């Protein structure tokens, strides 16, 4: 019976519709930031559903952490968010120090701030450059890498590695800075500061860039909080939260005495939008443009923190302190600590049982939570918006899959 109705020409005529298509984006797609796989359900160019599939980079880091000592786990944290290894080292070190009730020396504290903020700049530069790539402009990517290369040179001088540093470690840092390093760091900052304007000209205020990002993937503050988003994704939605200011005492103590404003839109303005471009009319709070802009502001903020840290570090007279022994026993008890990594709040949870090896290690990835809003953001967007939204979340698969 239904066959007859379906074949009725009147129904066919008024029931012409296009078929939905199931497209697989990734894990070898050029703009999925590594090995993310997205299954898109599309009607022509319009995406109706996005389903992220993860796990292509899973390396059992957490389980490995239960079989090695707490300090030996540091190199594994490097490989989580491999674009901000320093910040990952710091997160784990602080968590272990919290469990061991260790306090690093004043000099180590300032050096940690200095290094972590440099790492933040390096990470945001990649995020910014890769975002340009997602939107089809290649040059900003290379400009960003040119500057990042200079930061990596500084890191290489300090610890010998360019990507997986293991520099910040439990109880301090593995080595002090080589002579002349601070001068070179300052030279870099002076060189880098005027260049930021060029990035704004190429991306932030570019008409096509604003058209591609303004009003796209709007994430409301409520949804951002409900999904556990953090970092620039959360602040891009106008939620004023930064672990460096609102975190646990052991972490905020590190930034004691440092002056910085959290990069978040308050009453319609950003703290520093005097010197930097005004918010374009097309941009809506919580869209891709705001997430991107928050990152750009944090680069400036980090530069100011670095300048302060350089002063404080060079004023310190004491020693850097010694890191704990490789097989140092960690006390029984459990501890959870979140730090503000460039991508968001990275949490480490560990349970000690009196042996050098933690009994349990867990990592709470910011990229994971940030990625989880993707299906919500991609309802009814166009295919071209999917890379734009994924890029604005600035995810790193190494951290999501661990």
């Amino acid at each position: 019976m239904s066959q007859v109705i379906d074949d009725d020409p009147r129904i066919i005529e008024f029931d012409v519709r296009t078929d939905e298509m199931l497209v697989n984006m990734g894990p070898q797609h050029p703009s999925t930031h590594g090995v993310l796989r997205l299954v898109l359900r599309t009607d022509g160019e319009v995406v109706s559903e996005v389903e992220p599939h993860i796990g292509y980079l899973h390396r059992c880091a957490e389980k490995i952490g239960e079989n090695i000592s707490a300090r030996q786990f540091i190199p594994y944290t490097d490989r989580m968010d491999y674009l901000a290894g320093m910040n990952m080292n710091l997160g784990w070190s602080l968590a272990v120090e919290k469990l061991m009730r260790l306090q690093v020396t004043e000099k180590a504290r300032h050096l940690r701030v200095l290094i972590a903020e440099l790492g933040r700049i390096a990470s945001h530069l990649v995020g910014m450059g890769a975002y340009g790539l997602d939107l089809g402009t290649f040059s900003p990517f290379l400009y960003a890498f040119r500057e990042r290369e200079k930061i990596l040179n500084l890191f290489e001088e300090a610890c010998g590695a360019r990507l997986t540093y293991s520099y910040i470690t439990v109880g301090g840092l593995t080595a002090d800075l080589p002579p002349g390093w601070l001068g070179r760091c300052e030279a870099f900052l002076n060189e880098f500061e005027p260049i930021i304007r060029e990035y704004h000209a190429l991306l932030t205020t570019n008409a096509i860039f604003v058209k591609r990002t303004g009003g796209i993937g709007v994430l409301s503050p409520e949804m951002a909080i409900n999904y556990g988003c953090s970092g620039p994704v959360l602040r891009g939605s106008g939620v004023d939260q930064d672990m460096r200011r609102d975190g646990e005492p052991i972490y905020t103590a590190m930034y004691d005495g440092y002056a910085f404003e959290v990069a978040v839109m308050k009453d319609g303005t950003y703290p520093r939008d005097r010197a930097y471009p005004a918010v374009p009319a097309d941009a809506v709070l919580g869209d891709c443009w705001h997430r991107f802009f928050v990152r750009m502001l944090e680069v400036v903020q980090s530069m100011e923190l670095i300048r302060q840290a350089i002063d404080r570090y060079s004023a310190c007279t004491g020693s850097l302190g010694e890191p704990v022994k490789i097989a140092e026993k960690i006390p029984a008890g459990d501890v959870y600590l979140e730090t503000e990594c460039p991508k968001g709040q990275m949490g480490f949870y560990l349970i000690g049982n009196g042996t050098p090896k933690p009994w349990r290690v867990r990592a709470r990835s910011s990229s994971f939570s940030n990625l989880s809003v993707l299906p919500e953001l991609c309802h009814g967007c166009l295919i071209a918006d999917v890379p734009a939204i994924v890029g604005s979340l600035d995810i790193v698969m190494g951290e999501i899959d661990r």
Partner: protein
Amino acid sequence: MAEYLIQTMGLPGWLTWSLLAVLSAVLILNLMAGGALVFIWAERKVSARIQDRLGPTRTGGRFGWLQSLADGIKLLAKEDLMPERADKMLFRVAPYVSFCASFAAFIGLPFAFDMVALRLNVGVFYVVAVLGLEVFGVILAGYASASKWSLFGAMREAAQVVSYEVPLGMCIVVPVMLAGTMDLVTIAEKQSGWFTNWYLFHDPFTFVVFWVYTTCAVASVNRAPFDLAEAESELVAGFHTEYSGLRWSFFYMAEYSSMFLVSGLAAILFLGGWNGPVPIASLLGLSEGSGESTGAFVRLLGLANFLGKATLGVLFMMWIRWTLPRLRIDQVMTTCLKYCTPIAAVMFAGAMTWLWVFPGGC
């Protein structure tokens, strides 16, 4: 030349014409292939300099000038892959359709006075019509690849190129109207003299039309920021995702020669063709007709002028490609239908009025 061969060599007419046709085809094919190689190399160097890199430096000694050739050899040696579910025949045919469309359009394009393979009295019409065929190759490639990404690219190309031909055609009609002919050689000849005689500076309307033409030309040859059909970050590589080796290089060559073609067309329609900004030849009292050797000299000068202008156009396209982000498909269509088409139409009407008010120029 045909008359010369027939009269002095005593060759039969049909043989002469066939010989000349083969000669022209070989010349154009080589020019196109050679030009594409040069432009591919130039794109590498230009993009590298824009991005603070060096680009190729070693292949062929200084400046890596043999890089494109080396790439070509690499592409020849590459494994020829075809997706299992591809429509085999169409998959093979598609690159040649694109390439031939691009190649055939050159037949009507004059490079200097009398330096045209076939002088057509509907030259503009022919070039634009044949160039429009290139889109068939892309659609075929996208369809035959049996890949969803390729199909997306093909459908985007179809929508985009077909839409942009409307404002493109309107822009082209303006110089045609001013010259009163569709013959490209005559259009260029009418702009001889100082650069103020160029149609770009004919009246305010043509000046605007030129920029609309530039936008539409960039869009119709699929260059950034309108490279939607191969949008790398969205569609992997768009319509040529499944292509490799020599077949892929045919698409590549077609892209670069189309770029040259639309730039050359812009040079003839708006920038005086082979007439330089300063009429050096006529200041010196030379002309195309004055004697064998001086005539050849003047023609070569014209050729240099024309190639220079067209190359500048290509470099301009490279410059914007490495500077701007890509538009989204709906924005591309909006740009065409809401901005380019109405502006072109108004400018067309404006130029028409101007011609009516100042019939002899102002």
